[in-house]
Every structure is written in structure tokens, then in C-alpha cells.
């Protein structure tokens, strides 16, 4: 136990609040004789590559889950030959798309055609900058925090519109226009429901938002104080990710595959990757904004007193740090599971129903939700973040 505690304090650097991998990395490099500046510079790309890898693995797992759960919902077996239970199937799919021929239609605009999928994928990856897995376990705790995600997600419709237009195909054009209309219609209720959470946290920082939810475990999660906001946010997220029941841009019975119709090989794979990264990202953000992020359902203080350890003991810090990552991912994957089940239980809405739901229902409700939150914050400052 002593040696383990020593290892934990010296190599993982958990003297501060939560796991602080950065200072321990910098410290250990400094002990090899590097300057502080140099060590910091070497540190900079590491969390990014780690998060990128995590996102890619997350996509592979989600694709496999989607295929397996879809199969179970339809009483099929699903992928089963590539690896145990077919876990390698997404890898095989990706490899197949990587070696497939890239076809650009003769009448399409080549540059915009190639730029479209890139413009869809890059902002989605970039949004992972602000996803926290622990007190210091995020790439950068930038000041604008959650607002960065909202602004980055507005870039995506440009890419969709661009690829729809550049294909010079009627299905693609209609799909691209639908995608853009859907995206902008659900962005405002989305931003307004995030706004209510921001108001309760007095901060845009995702770390602050989670910290304010972890006073009393399960009971202090935002979902209890923002039930309406939670539902609005979840509906909007499904619409932004173009998941059923809101998958009109690629409704295959009407539009073949929407803006993706002309895409093949790697460019199609970029759309595919983008939509799944977006789904995992959105699920993570739901858990950060409403479900207490890395927090336990039971307060950490109780756990510490039950184990008769002080709360800042290295062992407790190490355990909470690593279980925190598991908690974040677990909550996110419960939501992914819910999204996949929704896909097989809800019929697709029509475009006019979709726009009505966004503009005539969610927008007024989210405005009311914001004002009610503000009024409650004035009346009960303690319960709503002071």
C-alpha cells in the first residue's frame, strides 16, 4: 500500500484536485534535465492525440453497438464473424472504405465536393477540446467553454450545404438544403437550453458546470433542476446529429441518401465518421451538462469517510480520477444506447412536422424555460447556483 501510494503521488502527480497528468509529465521530464518550456511544449500535443484516439475508438464501439443493438431489435444476429461477437466489423468497414475508389461525378464541382466532408468532420473533432473527463482531464479549459461547441456546430451546415450543392445531383441538393434547414432550426432551442444551465453555473466552462453538480451526488445533477431543458437538449441533439426520428436529410425512401448520394469511398467515410463522432460528443455533453459529468451518483465525501480516508488522500484521488473517466463514458454510452433504441422505435417525422416542432414548440418552450430558470434563481439563489 505504501509503495502504491508513493507511486501514485510521484508519477501521476495527484497532489492537486483530481488527476493532474500535465504537471506530473512536466515534472518528470524536468527531472531528465529538460527546460520547463520545452517540457510544456512536448506535453501540448499529447492530450490532443489521446482525445482523438479516444474519439475514434468511441466511434468504432458505437458503430459496433449500433449494428448489434439494431440486430437485436429486429431479432437478427448482426455482425459475428469479424472477431469475437463481430467487434472487428467496424474496423473492417473502415478498411474497406479506405481502399475503395474515389469517384467524383463528371458534372460536380470537384473542389467543393471534396471540401464538404472535411468541413463537416473538422468542427466535430475540434469540439472535443472542451469535453472534460475529470477535473483537469481535458485538452484545454478555454474561457468560452461550452459556447465554443455551439459556435463550432454552426459550421457543419455550411459543409452539408456545400456537398449537397457541389454534387450537382437533385437528391443531393434537396438533402443538403434539408440538412441546413434542420440544423439551423434546432440550434436556437439547443443554445437556449444550454443557456439555462450556464446561468445556473455562472460560468461557460465545462469543468465549472460539472463541479457545481457534484455537491450531493445524484441529487445535485442538473437534470432535476432543468428537466425541461434536458428534454429539449436531447431532442435538439438528435436533430443536429440527424438521428431518427429526424434523419430527413438522408431519408433513403425519398432522397436515396440525401447529400451523401454521390459520395463513395473515403469521402463517404468522412461523413459517416463525422456523424458518429458527433453522436458520441453529444452524448458526452448531455452527461456533462445534465448528468453530473464525471461525478458519482454517491458523494465522494461519503465514500471517503466510509473507507476512512481523508478526501485528499492520494489513493482516493487516484480512484476518483480513474472512476470519473469511467462514469463520464458510462453515462454517455447509456445515452448512445437510448439513441439507438429510439432509432428502432420512432417513425421518421415529415419536414413540416420537423420545422413546426422546432419553431412553434421547442423555441417558445426553451425561452420560457430560460426565464423560469432566471426567476427561480432570483427567488432561490442557493438551489440555483447563487
Amino acid at each position: 500500500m505504501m509503495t502504491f501510494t508513493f507511486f501514485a503521488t510521484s508519477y501521476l502527480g495527484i497532489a492537486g484536485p483530481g488527476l493532474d497528468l500535465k504537471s506530473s509529465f512536466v515534472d518528470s521530464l524536468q527531472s531528465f534535465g529538460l527546460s520547463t518550456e520545452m517540457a510544456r511544449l512536448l506535453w501540448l500535443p499529447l492530450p490532443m492525440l489521446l482525445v482523438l484516439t479516444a474519439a475514434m475508438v468511441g466511434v468504432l464501439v458505437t458503430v459496433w453497438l449500433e449494428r448489434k443493438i439494431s440486430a437485436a431489435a429486429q431479432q437478427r444476429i448482426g455482425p459475428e464473424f469479424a472477431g469475437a461477437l463481430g467487434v472487428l466489423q467496424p474496423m473492417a468497414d473502415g478498411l474497406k472504405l479506405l481502399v475503395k475508389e474515389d469517384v467524383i461525378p463528371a458534372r460536380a464541382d470537384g473542389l467543393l465536393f471534396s471540401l464538404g466532408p472535411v468541413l463537416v468532420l473538422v468542427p466535430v473533432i475540434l469540439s472535443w477540446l472542451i469535453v472534460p473527463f475529470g477535473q483537469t482531464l481535458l485538452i484545454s479549459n478555454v474561457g468560452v467553454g461550452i459556447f465554443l461547441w455551439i459556435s463550432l456546430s454552426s459550421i457543419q451546415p455550411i459543409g452539408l450545404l456545400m456537398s449537397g450543392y457541389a454534387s450537382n445531383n437533385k437528391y443531393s441538393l434537396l438533402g443538403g438544403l434539408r440538412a441546413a434547414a434542420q440544423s439551423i432550426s434546432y440550434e436556437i432551442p439547443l443554445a437556449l437550453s444550454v443557456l439555462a444551465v450556464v446561468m445556473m453555473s455562472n460560468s461557460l466552462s465545462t469543468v465549472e458546470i460539472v463541479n457545481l453538480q457534484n455537491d450531493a451526488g445524484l441529487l445535485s445533477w442538473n437534470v432535476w433542476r432543468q428537466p425541461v431543458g434536458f428534454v429539449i437538449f436531447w431532442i435538439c441533439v438528435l436533430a443536429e446529429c440527424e438521428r431518427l426520428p429526424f434523419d430527413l436529410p438522408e431519408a433513403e425512401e425519398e432522397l436515396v441518401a440525401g447529400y451523401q448520394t454521390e459520395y463513395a469511398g473515403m469521402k463517404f467515410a468522412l461523413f459517416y465518421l463525422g456523424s458518429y463522432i458527433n453522436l458520441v460528443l453529444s452524448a458526452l455533453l448531455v452527461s456533462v451538462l445534465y448528468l453530473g459529468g464525471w461525478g458519482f451518483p454517491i458523494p465522494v465525501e461519503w465514500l471517503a469517510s466510509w473507507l476512512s480516508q481523508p478526501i485528499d488522500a492520494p489513493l482516493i484521488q487516484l480512484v476518483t480520477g480513474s472512476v470519473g473517466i469511467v462514469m463520464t463514458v458510462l453515462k454517455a454510452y447509456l445515452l448512445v444506447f437510448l439513441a439507438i433504441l429510439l432509432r428502432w422505435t420512432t417513425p421518421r417525422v415529415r419536414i413540416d412536422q420537423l420545422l413546426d416542432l422546432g419553431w412553434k414548440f421547442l423555441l417558445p418552450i426553451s425561452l420560457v424555460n430560460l426565464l423560469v430558470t432566471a426567476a427561480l434563481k432570483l427567488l432561490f439563489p442557493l438551489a440555483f447556483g447563487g
Partner: protein
Amino acid sequence: MKSGLSMFSLPGYDAFLGFLLIAAAVPILALVTNKLISPRSREGERELTYESGMEPIGGAWIQFNIRYYMFALVFVIFDVETVFLYPWAVAFNRLGLLAFIEALIFIAILVVALAYAWRKGALEWS
């Protein structure tokens, strides 16, 4: 490098720039790899635009009625509104009742605009 990093007056945004480069490298690497290892042939009607198996009739770059442009206009108004509300929400605990009433008036004006657009049929798809 010190001078390069101190160019950013706001903390944490050097990571944004770094991650932007890494995020942009993903699709570029994927597309370049695809270009290098995938087969290439231009024979037959491979590059013909897909139109349910028919010869495509005309192009898609034509003038037609985009029914969504009214939504886009209303969207711009409400998007700007939301951006204005963000600083209000962050500082709300220090502003108190007066800021609440001010925001109430601000939102009320926009709700009137929404009601007007609704009555005028700007939010109807057909």
C-alpha cells in the same frame, strides 16, 4: 517559441490552434491515403450523376424556390439574440432583479417578432 505562444492574450487558446491542426490533419491524411492506395479507372459511365438509374435530365444547378429562406432569416434574428443573452446569463448572479426585467423586455420584443412571423406564415413550410 515563447514569443509565438505569448501572441495569444487569452489562456488556453494555443491548444485550440494546435487541435485545429490535428483535427484538420485527420481528413487530409485519410484522403491522401485513399488517393495513394485505391484503384483508379474512369471507364464506362462511372462518373455519371446518379438519378435512379436513368440518364440524368438537366442539372441541379437551376433556379428554384428555396422554401427555407424565411427560416434562415428568422434564425439569424434569434441566433443573434442568443449570443446577446450569453453574457447576461454568465453574470446573472451579480446583476440581480434589474437585469432580469431588462432581459424580460428584450425577450418580449423578440417574442412579438416571433408571433408576427408566425402570423405572417413565415414558419409554414408549404
